[in-house]
């Protein structure tokens, strides 16, 4: 399992959660600007699992169809980031982003675009935060929207066929009185995971070392 390869201490895990928390907060701020409403994203819960386990975890929590906004990234880390949420919430999310003014027909046309943009904002914020803290550049691909279920979303390998680690985040969205839930998954290769681990160690050293 991943834990054999990527061993995160309790503090490193806390640090990872906070790094992601910073990213998610930036994402919430960006979304707020975008939709002009109060947007809150909850403190994320983070796990590092295998792709297979990620499929199981997601499958247990979501038994219906899912939508995923996917973006590949390269630079300080390389891999694929996905914003995943239940298909049933997809229109509501699009509505929240697009506003109440437009008609349902128009919304249906805009749905894909709205989802791609939302995903782009959230994923970009999370990844950019990490890259910033590593002080290394990161480039991201154009977002694509895919539909599927828990097992199919993780079936396509990032590169080669290794069962690489997945950074699996649970977050809840609250956009303008709508409660939506979603997941962020970042499939990374091993070098990226090691870079991340170094980042976390540095973060801890600064925070704990400084104040003690």
């Amino acid at each position, binding site marked *: 399992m991943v834990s054999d390869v990527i061993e995160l201490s309790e503090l490193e895990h806390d640090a990872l959660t906070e790094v992601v928390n910073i990213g998610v907060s930036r994402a919430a701020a960006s979304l707020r600007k975008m939709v002009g409403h109060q947007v809150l994203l909850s403190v994320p819960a983070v796990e590092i699992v295998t792709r297979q386990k990620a499929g199981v975890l997601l499958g247990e*929590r979501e038994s219906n169809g899912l939508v995923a906004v996917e973006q590949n990234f390269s630079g300080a880390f390389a891999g694929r980031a996905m914003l995943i949420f239940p298909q049933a919430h997809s229109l509501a999310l699009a509505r929240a982003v697009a506003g109440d003014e437009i008609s349902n027909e128009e919304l249906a046309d805009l749905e894909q675009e709205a989802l791609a943009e939302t995903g782009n904002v959230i994923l970009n914020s999370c990844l950019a935060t990490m890259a910033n803290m590593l002080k290394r550049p990161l480039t991201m691909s154009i977002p694509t929207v895919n539909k599927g279920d828990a097992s199919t979303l993780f079936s396509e390998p990032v590169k080669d066929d290794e069962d690489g680690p997945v950074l699996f985040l649970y977050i809840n969205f609250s956009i303008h009185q709508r409660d939506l839930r979603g997941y962020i998954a970042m499939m990374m290769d091993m070098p990226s995971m090691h870079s991340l681990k170094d980042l976390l160690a540095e973060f801890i050293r600064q925070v704990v070392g400084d104040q003690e």
Partner: protein
Amino acid sequence: MPNSSDRWSATRSKPARVLQFRNRDGPKAVTAEPPSLASTDDKHSLLGQLRERLNISLLAAGAAGSWDWDISRNQLYLDDRMAALYGIDPAEADAGLATSIFFKAIYPGDANRIRIAVAGLLHGAELFFKTYRIITSDDQVCWVEAHGRCHFDAAGRPERFSGILVDVTERHRVEERLRIAQSAGGIGTFEHIPGHATVMVSHEFCRLLGLNSADVLPVVTINRLVKEGCPPLLEMGRQQGEDLTYSEIGVRRADNGEERWLARRGEAVRDVEGGGVRFIGVIYDVTESKRVEDALRHLNDTLEQRVEREIAERLQIEEALRQAQKMEAVGQLTGGIAHDFNNLLTVILGNVDMARSRLGNSGDERIERALANAQKGAERASALTQRLLAFSRRQPLAPKKILVSRLLQGMAELISRSLGETVILKTETTPDLWTVEADPNQLENAILNLAVNGRDAMDGSGTLTLTAANIPSGELLPSGEIASRDYLMLSVTDTGSGMSQEAVDRAFEPFFTTKEVGKGTGLGLSMVYGFVKQSGGDIHISSRLREGTTVCLYLPRAGDASADLSDQIIPGEQPSSLNETVLVVEDDEDVRQFAVECLLELGYQVIQAAGGREALSLLIERQEDVQLLVTDVVMPGLSGRQLAEAAQQLNPSLPILYVSGYPRDVILQDGRVKEGVELLSKPFTQQALAAKVRELLDQSVSVEV
């Protein structure tokens, strides 16, 4: 147990905003209309009022204190309660403290974790939600839940980090107790509002189902683990009025597919908004008790059947035992009678024989006819005693390896002649039949006997089928037993009148016959039975009235495959008149007299003894002279065999002829004649005795040469 909705409440209530009313150059109040104040005094009094109001609301919210961390100025402000908790002078806390004070009261084991979380806030994270321990000014450890939030300036830079502390010591204790109760007792809890697609569950709940730990799961995820035919663990459409009834539900664990039984209990709680209900319940594993219960129920349900079966089995065994004991008793009785009869018949037959040869051609024709009739009658009686001995399994057998198919071929003509023209004879044999080891003459007798029985049952017309087949060990025999070794099965089937079950049960008993008086002796099947049993085999009859009968013989497969079918060579009988000395030992006076007279007439020198001891002393006395020992087997005192052994010690080359109507195991080994021993069955004729004596004397001469 904190869940996501708890996390919201902190930010929604936004207590930190009120703290912004502090009399400093901080951010402006967010309330719509800040009161316009005439004087500083007025300001102070209004501030006092607002603080008072804030305290009341914080108290009502259960807050143990609140803080405001000014990021740009690097100052920390605590309210009175939090200052008291930290043991800091409220005036100092109000004036502003070093930000490191925030961590001062935090329990050391939790401090680093909180430092990291705060660092996240200072670097741009928005929400702060942590549970940790603090050590209060009076050295008490208490659990607090911190709900904080970061505020950003127009440029998006973190500006203030403020929040409240809630004392959750009591709740934490209850939660710990609940958690331990759940894991120690293996009890998982759930909370479900009917109609909702998700359900709140405990970690133990997930563990019992083999799911990954989660606080909230879709109802379908849980219900799809339930085995077919069981009610769902959580009913989506449950009626509001109903309670959660106890039920046992079979599930297939999500992680390893193992089948388990879970019990579900719970209550309906009516406190949901709008008067609805929540179902709060528990599940726990009852697989083991369910298994025991099922096994017990099954045992109970089948008790009567099992008792009946046991009784039936026992009755069957008792019946078989009774039958076997009866056959054994009858066998002993008939064997005993046959033995005595043989002695009598030997005397009768021998004397009639002698009388006839003495009479020659010169005598009265009527006397000759009378003697001939007497001899015929005695011979028939002799045949009868042979059959009785056969049944009682005491006939000497000379087993040989037999190819049954060849034996049947050889018998075909004899059998079809016996059956007559109107009965069709069919022979069905499979190729590669195993060889058996049995006495071929007796086997032929048995087959012929069965064929004749079949013919009689068919009343002159029908089909008689002879079948031979291999029965490997392990196959089921018609008797219901499993074959313990390889057998060759030989069956004779007729299409005759069949037998009633009662007749089948008694068919092997001697003198039991279904034939008309005078038509059968009732000994045919008894003989076959005795022969098969003595040969280590078995016999079985199946019959249906008006349909026919099949008799199956099971003969053990011979150890060696090669069969010896060479015909027995009967040595030519040539009565000689030599002068060898023969010692005759026989306790029955009449039999001895007959034998002695026969031998004397043949020209032998005869000495005689009435018992073993007498014979032995004669042998010692006249050792040189005695060339042959003829002895009875069963005698009081020294038996024939003991005598023979003693005689052979004196003279190892002395030939010995046993004469017996009842050899039993004195000379039989496994029902066979011992090698090197000659046996003459009683009753015997003068000719038979003459032939045997000559044969032995000639053999011993050739051995000596």
